[in-house]
């Protein structure tokens, strides 16, 4: 056990960016690693760590990983715009924001993720995608897969099986992409449909596409086979042994500082707070007693917090003091159902104990919370 981790430390420390950069005795130009974890945050954190700490001048890296159900949005995207957050919460599907650009994807164990690490100069997405297509064709020559100029891989000229994103730093870069082998398409399509109306933002929008699993084309395919085929092709192109090294992204000795990175990726400030400024302009249709009230709501949300809040209620529907308390409470608070619930229920404690008032309040607040 100790010997193995020591060996890992040695090869890893040798490719770390030190001024006297040495390289391990293998003369290969590449290294293939695979994560033993299915936690999306751990995997994104280790991807980040490798990008920050490793030197790819002498040795490029291919990182293979899979995640348990999660929705991953791009760096500059708006989660409210991209997915059904209510459904995610109900189904306990994680939400993560990655550091690369691009659109929103759904991950589960039937989807594989590939990250190609290179120096900034050697950043070349087309080459990587062509490598994948070559590997697929070597495995199953009858597969009709090709790379588009939008860096997608299409099956049968119409179904998307892979999406791409990239991150460029000062001296290194990575290009990662997904590959749909056997993912749950039903969950995929339902979570990637946003129910939130009236959103206006400059966040990067996703381009929806019809997707298909490679498994549907050829049921004998498994994720293991695909990973193996791609690793083989990568190794062949670099004249190296296609041995896949397993890594544990929770190992702090191997990746010092990784637990902080993992924690940061899970914070509300990163996942929701990094959403570019957006506004909501919508109408609440509240059924109250025998009528339906149309209530215009306008909100500005910056850094995931409500900056401005306007609710157009009929006059005297709520005591004015209480209405202004509500707006004051919401302003500056997270655009988050949990926090809003805590705030509005607290406000009820300090207002007159009137059943009619309470039911109006609850109705309004429930509707407001639905927007989040």
């Amino acid at each position: 056990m100790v010997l193995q981790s020591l060996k890992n430390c040695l090869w890893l420390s040798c490719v770390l960016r030190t001024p006297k950069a040495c390289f391990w005795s293998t003369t290969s130009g590449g290294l293939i690693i695979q994560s033993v974890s299915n936690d999306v945050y751990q995997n994104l954190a280790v991807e980040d760590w490798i990008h920050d700490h490793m030197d790819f001048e002498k040795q490029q890296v291919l990182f293979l990983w899979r995640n348990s159900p999660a929705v991953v949005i791009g760096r500059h995207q708006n989660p409210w715009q991209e997915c059904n957050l209510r459904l995610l919460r109900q189904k306990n599907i994680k939400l993560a924001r990655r550091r690369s650009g691009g659109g929103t994807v759904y991950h589960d164990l039937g989807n594989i993720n590939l990250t190609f690490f290179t120096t900034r100069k050697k950043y070349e997405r087309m080459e990587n995608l062509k490598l994948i297509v070559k590997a697929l064709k070597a495995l199953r020559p009858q597969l009709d897969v090709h790379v588009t100029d939008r860096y997608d891989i299409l099956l049968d000229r119409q179904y998307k099986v892979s999406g791409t994103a990239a991150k460029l730093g000062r001296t290194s870069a990575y290009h990662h992409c997904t590959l749909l082998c056997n993912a749950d398409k039903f969950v995929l399509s339902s979570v990637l449909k946003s129910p939130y109306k009236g959103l206006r933002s400059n966040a990067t929008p996703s381009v929806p596409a019809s997707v298909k699993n490679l498994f549907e084309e050829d049921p004998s395919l498994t994720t293991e086979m695909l990973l193996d085929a791609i690793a083989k092709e990568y190794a062949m192109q670099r004249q190296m042994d296609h041995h896949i090294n397993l890594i544990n992204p929770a190992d702090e000795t191997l990746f010092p500082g990784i637990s902080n990175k993992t924690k940061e990726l899970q914070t509300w400030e990163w996942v929701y707070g990094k959403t570019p400024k957006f506004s909501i302009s919508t109408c609440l249709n509240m059924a109250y007693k025998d009528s339906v009230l149309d209530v215009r709501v306008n909100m500005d949300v910056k850094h995931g917090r409500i900056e401005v809040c306007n609710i157009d209620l009929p006059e005297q529907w709520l005591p004015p003091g209480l209405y202004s308390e509500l707006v004051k409470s919401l302003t500056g608070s997270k655009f988050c159902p949990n926090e809003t619930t805590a705030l509005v229920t607290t406000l009820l404690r300090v207002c007159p104990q009137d059943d009619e008032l309470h039911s109006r309040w609850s109705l309004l607040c429930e509707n407001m919370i639905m927007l989040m």
Partner: protein
Amino acid sequence: VCFHRVRSCSSIRFIKSKYVCVFDKSALKFSHQQRLFRTSAVSCGQIVQFKLSDIGEGITEVTVKEWYIKEGDSVSQFDSICEVQSDKASVTITSRYDGVIRKLHYSIDDIAFVGKPLVDIEIDASKGVAPEEDVVETPPMSHEEHTHQEIKGHKTLATPAVRRLAMENNIKLSEVVGTGKDNRILKEDILNYLAKQTGAILPPSPKAEIVPPPRKTETVPAAPKDKAHKIPIPVSRPIAFSGKDKTEPVTGFQKAMVKTMSAALKIPHFGYCDEIDLTQLVQLREELKPLAELRGVKLSFMPFFIKAASLGLLQYPILNASLDENCQNVTYKASHNIGVAMDTEQGLIVPNVKNVQVCSVFDIAVELNRLQSLGSAGQLGTSDLTGGTFTLSNIGTIGGTYAKPVILPPEVAIGALGKIQVLPRFNGKGEVFKAQIMNVSWSADHRIIDGATMARFSNLWKSYLENPASMLLDLK
């Protein structure tokens, strides 16, 4: 050009420094190695336009998505300046220079062009313009310390200029406390460190100081140097502390607490505490736990505490009441909606179990399980958090014996339960036995509740729990 400009500024005094570099001169474009000390806040630095460099793949334009700095900020070489996006690629642009940001050429969501200026940076006058390529410095002494130092995996951040200064003075970067961003070591930090060594610039602190271990003198390299400073053995040295106060607005759960507790302040509280012998209840729960598990429910002590409280409230309904704002009317609530204080990641929330008066102990356990899992997932609804009439807080699960709980308006009473301790007690025969003792601390609104009522309620609640069989008589 830079040199000429500096010469003409009379506000800067030239000090022929001792720190003449013996380094690879090609590292700097200018041959002059004079180090200048700024004596005034205004610096006559050169403004350089930092252009957006080539992204690769023939890309000519990108969208600016986030600025990490603003005009007036100081930046060091390699600090992140902004994030731009181009066609699914997110690019972090880092600074090539040390200096101060003077102008941002784009706003968020603007299109930026490769080759055109991105920001204007005022370069620190002493440093000159850094070369186009990243420079790998070859120090004359092969001190491992002065390159990327790894101390237990922690990198010491400092610009090449700062490292040079440290090296010239034989200062280990690991000994210096960085006050810059990410604990980066700045030139000022090195100078402060030096000053403390010689005692020259800064007077010793008048406060009582901890005498440091003699370790410090041993770490100074013994190798003789021309510019050896006479480092006196320090008797006391102020511990360098670079922490800064942090102010942030009160929002979210904290805001909710502020509102609730401020309102609670209006209520005149009185306290009443007692000790409960839970020996029999502990045994009973042990017997019932596996039965509950078979039904898929975790059974704690709380369902018993809650049910006993409800039975007590049937006898003393004033404890389940509410006083209106003007203290004119008391409303006796029919439902016993007993709140349970819950500690979540975000803070304190108090969901309540509805209508305990018609629930069995098992029903309460089921409901508690539901509220607990929703609470930890941050998914409690408004109906779970409103309508409470009486509250219990089981602070004992974390620790403590006696407490002084605060009543949550519009309620009039609250109980805090301490931890269960095994203590020696005397039984009826005068023998010492092992008892499971828990303390309870009640608070009540003294405007409508008197001490006697609280005491009698507490005694009744206590008797149900000390002799659980008696609950059977009164269960509805």
